[in-house]
């Protein structure tokens, strides 16, 4: 018998609609209509906040690291609201791949200036004016920051996959073994 069909009163909270992406087993006990509703609003908002932090880092508190962590918290919220496995449905990339990609980008960002005759890890600042949008400043170190961002998101996702879902799976297996 799947846990979601248990008639326990602790499952009464489960919403009737699909608020978050899912399509796989979810433990009714963990569900809460309130949480899912809020997660549905907060999740993309936090992602926007994360991207803001990534780009605002040059002038205010933030940066790729904080941005990545905030984005990671968004996924954590989804994980909490949606139950396990939900996190992997969001990004089809496996977390280790994301981590590896982030690291590779960061290293590539170090080499990039060499192509333009600069020194390793040297920063170039490009300023250009676009119609309507005004002056745009592009600092090449944002590539490094993006690598950091991706890597951190990957790390958080990996932690959710392992410490979150992995341990839960262990617990389920143990419970099955006991039964």
């Amino acid at each position, binding site marked *: 018998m799947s846990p979601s069909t248990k008639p326990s009163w*602790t499952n009464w909270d489960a919403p009737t609609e699909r608020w978050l992406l899912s399509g796989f087993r979810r433990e009714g*006990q963990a569900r809460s209509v309130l949480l899912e509703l809020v997660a549905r609003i907060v999740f993309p908002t*936090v992602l926007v*906040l994360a991207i803001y*932090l990534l780009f605002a880092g040059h002038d*205010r*508190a933030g940066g790729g690291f904080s941005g990545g962590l905030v984005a990671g*918290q968004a996924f954590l919220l989804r994980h*909490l609201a949606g139950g396990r496995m939900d996190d992997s449905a969001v990004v089809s990339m496996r977390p280790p791949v994301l981590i590896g990609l982030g690291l590779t980008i960061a290293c590539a960002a170090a080499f990039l200036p060499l192509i333009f005759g600069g020194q390793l890890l040297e920063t170039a600042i490009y300023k250009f004016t676009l119609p309507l949008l005004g002056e745009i400043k592009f600092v090449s170190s944002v590539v490094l920051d993006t690598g950091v961002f991706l890597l951190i998101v990957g790390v958080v996702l990996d932690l959710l996959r392992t410490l979150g879902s992995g341990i839960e799976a262990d617990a389920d297996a143990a419970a099955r073994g006991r039964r």
Partner: protein
Amino acid sequence: MSWVFAVTFVLLSVAGLLVVVRLLLGSTTLDRIVAVDVLVTLVVAGTCVGMGLQQDGSNIALLAAFALLAFIGSISTAKLIEKKEPYR
């Protein structure tokens, strides 16, 4: 105006210490979760006041981050508790 900020800080500090006392007393883990959540809110409030004092709001986004984080940390802990210690 600065006395207003000073009074605010003092009030918030006292509140924070009272919360720490609850945190130490417990008695249940849920009490402590609540206390931690309140503590973070107090830090957010204090930070906000500080920004007003310095007339500088450029880092206000981090308050938004704080506010969200306290929430996520608290609910994950609360969910653990309810799973771990079944009813009666």
